[in-house]
């Protein structure tokens, strides 16, 4: 990547992860719900492209990597890992998260955020007030807690949209 002032081609993250290309029937099917396509991508951009009060971009990408790893969403996980490399994030931290070694991380704030992520992805029913208060005790503001919850919840959505479209595309191939 260079720093020329040319905008990169807009990539639809869901299409890219399935993957879907414009010559596929499932790509065209998806466009019948074009507002959903646009709002899904804009939600992704709101999570990752813009500044988010209270959470660094590296923290958001580490949460995403962990969430996708726990969900066995490998192509999405690879995207977020690439994003971390692009941010020049600490490679040792990225590698530890990729191996699921959350407890080995030195930063207690990051450890708390990723533990919360794993629980919210896998066992949302276990959410309780104490978990939110523990994160607040690590210095997360109310806007940061809302952003973190939205991010994890959005990733749950993104993983399922990709999984569903992948199955749809596969069914077309076998029809």
């Amino acid at each position, binding site marked *: 990547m260079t720093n020329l002032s040319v905008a990169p081609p807009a990539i639809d993250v869901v299409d890219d992860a399935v993957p879907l290309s414009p010559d596929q029937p499932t790509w065209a099917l998806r466009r019948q719900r074009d507002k959903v396509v646009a709002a899904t991508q804009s939600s992704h951009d709101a999570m990752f492209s813009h500044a988010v009060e209270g959470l660094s971009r590296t923290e958001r990408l580490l949460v995403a990597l962990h969430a996708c790893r726990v969900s066995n969403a490998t192509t999405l996980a690879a995207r977020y890992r690439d994003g971390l490399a692009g941010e020049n994030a600490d490679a040792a931290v990225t590698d530890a998260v990729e191996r699921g070694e959350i407890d080995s991380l030195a930063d207690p704030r990051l450890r708390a955020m990723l533990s919360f992520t794993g629980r919210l992805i896998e066992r949302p029913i276990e959410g309780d007030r104490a978990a939110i208060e523990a994160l607040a005790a690590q210095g997360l503001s109310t806007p940061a807690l809302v952003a973190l919850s*939205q991010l994890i919840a959005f990733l749950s959505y993104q993983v399922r949209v990709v999984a569903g479209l992948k199955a749809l595309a596969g069914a077309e191939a076998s029809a």
Partner: protein
Amino acid sequence: MTFPIRIKGFTTDVLKWKPWLDVVNVDTATPAQLAALDEMSPQARSSPYFLVLAHQPEILLQRSIAFNAIMFAPGGMPRAERELGATVESRVNGCVYCASVHAQRFEQLAKRDDVISQVFEEPATAGTTPREKAIVEFSIRLGAEPGKVSPDDILALKAVGLGELEILDLIHSVALFAWANRLMLNLGEPVFPETAAS
């Protein structure tokens, strides 16, 4: 009026929701926060849930657009069945509040509640017709084990008559409630009528 269903901790009673975080004050909200609330619904300005989410207005705005497009777009899967998918996902995730709201919407749209009792009792076997059973089964699978959803699951939906746009609508609805449930379950708690009255 039918009586509310109350099974295994799930209900079609009208519940309230109590946030664990402070809410945005509508009187001092920014234009971006108000725009995000209004994009969601005319009632959002008085909802503690949306007033918590308004702390991140751009994220709420995009989520509101996605929510309304998925649940209300014309054509495709009948709206009652989208609400059924949302209710099943909420039941499986244990989100009592979302299950109540969307079970009520199913009842309003479908004019019946038989399948709601079944979903609350035991989602794995719920459904009053082969089509409904297939919708419920798929919703459970995509909700609980997205990594295991396969083309065979799509073919099972097609075999009971679902068209591709209907299947896409169901995928979006279930995925949307994977999102919604995790907010409702982690930023606050449902308040039951008995508790509210005491």
